[in-house]
């Protein structure tokens, strides 16, 4: 798989990712259990992504450096089309950045693997598999025995509230239910880091709010390290520990905002409204500069 996409061909400087480097182990979070909560788990250094079309070079992401602490949820927000998803895909290993280094603990991340679980905007569920079989996919790959696989899948299906639909086909589910499957499929593998690419972007406003509450509820029970890309500032303020605001293209970090309040949060509280307004203004400035 090359890094080609509609924007042109990716330029890369280092040697190409090798598919044999793909991590396929179950419970990769165990590998980093010695890192205490709140210490740096994943670090992204000088990430740079350049696309080449026939006659032009486009810098999509430039100089993106971020330390992700264990157990925190970081949201990445930015002007539309700024390259949020590109950053996330680069971290996932689905596209190889032009330069830069991504490490989890001491281990450098290259090819995609089960240590960086991902939840997709378009759900990306396997339509020929039932809900349970979708959730089991990663464990199948990792060689988890059938019995344990089924038990764990059932536990997570229950956690996302789909126990009545465990044997349903994906096409029988609503959008919100589909994304619950997507989340369960990622969580059940216990990846070191979970990447969420606008997971609620395809849902209607009401379902979206419910899903945000659900996510907060699920996370309250299990400590996870999550990188969450969204274009909704409201969503970011509602769920995140920290919010990374990106500039317009090429995407680089404009500001990192701490959101120290406990969850669940009140969207109508003055602090909430104030922070939301601040971020929106920052983004607005970026968009104006664009014009």
């Amino acid at each position, binding site marked *: 798989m090359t890094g080609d996409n509609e924007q042109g061909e990716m330029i890369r400087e280092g040697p190409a990712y090798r*598919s044999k480097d793909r991590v*396929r182990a179950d419970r990769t979070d165990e590998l980093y259990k010695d890192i205490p909560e709140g210490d740096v788990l994943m670090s992204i250094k000088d990430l740079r992504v350049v696309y080449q079309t026939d006659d032009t070079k486009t810098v999509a992401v430039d100089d993106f450096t971020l330390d992700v602490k264990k157990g925190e949820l970081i949201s990445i927000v930015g002007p539309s089309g700024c390259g949020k998803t590109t950053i996330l895909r680069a971290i996932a*290993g689905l596209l190889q950045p032009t330069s830069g280094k991504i490490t989890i603990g001491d281990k450098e991340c290259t090819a*995609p693997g089960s240590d960086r679980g991902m939840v997709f905007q378009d759900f990306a569920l396997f339509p*020929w598999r039932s809900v349970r079989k979708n959730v089991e*996919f*990663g464990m199948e*790959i990792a060689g988890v025995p059938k019995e344990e696989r089924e038990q764990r899948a059932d536990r997570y299906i229950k956690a996302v509230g789909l126990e009545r639909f465990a044997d349903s086909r994906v096409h029988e589910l609503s959008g919100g239910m589909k994304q619950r499957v997507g989340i369960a499929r990622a969580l059940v593998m216990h990846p070191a880091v979970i990447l969420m690419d606008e997971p609620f972007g395809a849902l209607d406003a009401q379902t979206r709010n419910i899903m945000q509450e659900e996510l907060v509820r699920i996370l309250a029970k299990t400590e996870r390290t999550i990188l969450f890309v969204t274009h909704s500032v409201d969503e970011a303020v509602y769920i995140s520990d920290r919010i990374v605001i990106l500039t317009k293209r090429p995407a680089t970090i404009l500001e990192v905002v701490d959101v120290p309040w406990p969850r669940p949060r009140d969207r109508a509280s003055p602090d909430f409204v104030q922070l939301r307004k601040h971020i929106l203004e920052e983004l607005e400035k970026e968009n104006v500069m664009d014009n």
Partner: protein
Amino acid sequence: MDFKYDKHNKYHRAVRSLLIIAISMVLFVEIWWVLSILANTPAVPSPLETWNALIDLINNGDSITQKSLGQYVGSSMATFLKGFLLALVVAIPIGLILGTFKTLNAFANPIIEVLRPIAPIAWAPILILAINYSTGPMLVVFVGIFFPLLTNVVFGVSKIDGSLVDAAKTLGASNSQIFMKVLMPSTVPYIMNGVKIGLGIGWMCIVAAELYAPTLAGIGFYLSEQATLGYWPGAFAAIVVIAVLGLLTTGVAEYIHKIITKRMGIDV
């Protein structure tokens, strides 16, 4: 009579479509009958004559070769199945490989495009005379099914949802696991589509090929034997048998296609 058609009632709908089919078949026979009278030649027998010949064929078989209808049909079916299975075994792996490796496909595509438009029947005299009477017709069926199947499989691989492959990768799947657990299942509906089209073409090929291959003694041979002897109702009876078997084949293919598409959750 106080009867009202309710289009939301499943049974009403079923009865309605059966009635339409029945009326259409009656119309067909009527037109045939009129045409046979107008043509006024023994080469176009009436439906009744054909029916009698068909009953005779079913009951007494072929009076010349002493073969029964079952033997003729069985022989055709066997040839057909052999060609079909060979096409499956050859076209699906080649299609998966060509679909996966773009450069290889670029090399193969010109060759395929040169061969594909040739009517399978055109191969019949060559394959049958150059190879032999028993494998030739099977190969004609193979050619007929091979190309639609191949192009559908290649197309199916190209239509694979990239985000499913991405999802598999982030769940740790190796390339061979992606091939087995993502690529293969998502291509199945396209394979079935190719099979459906291929079965129709293959069935046309078998009869045509048998016209050249008397030793196989399929239903196509019976057709040509009867026509050569000028026993037209017999020839028409053979055509009816071929039509019914063709309907059955496509019916079975449609049914399997429907089940599999539903099972795979992908509609193509």
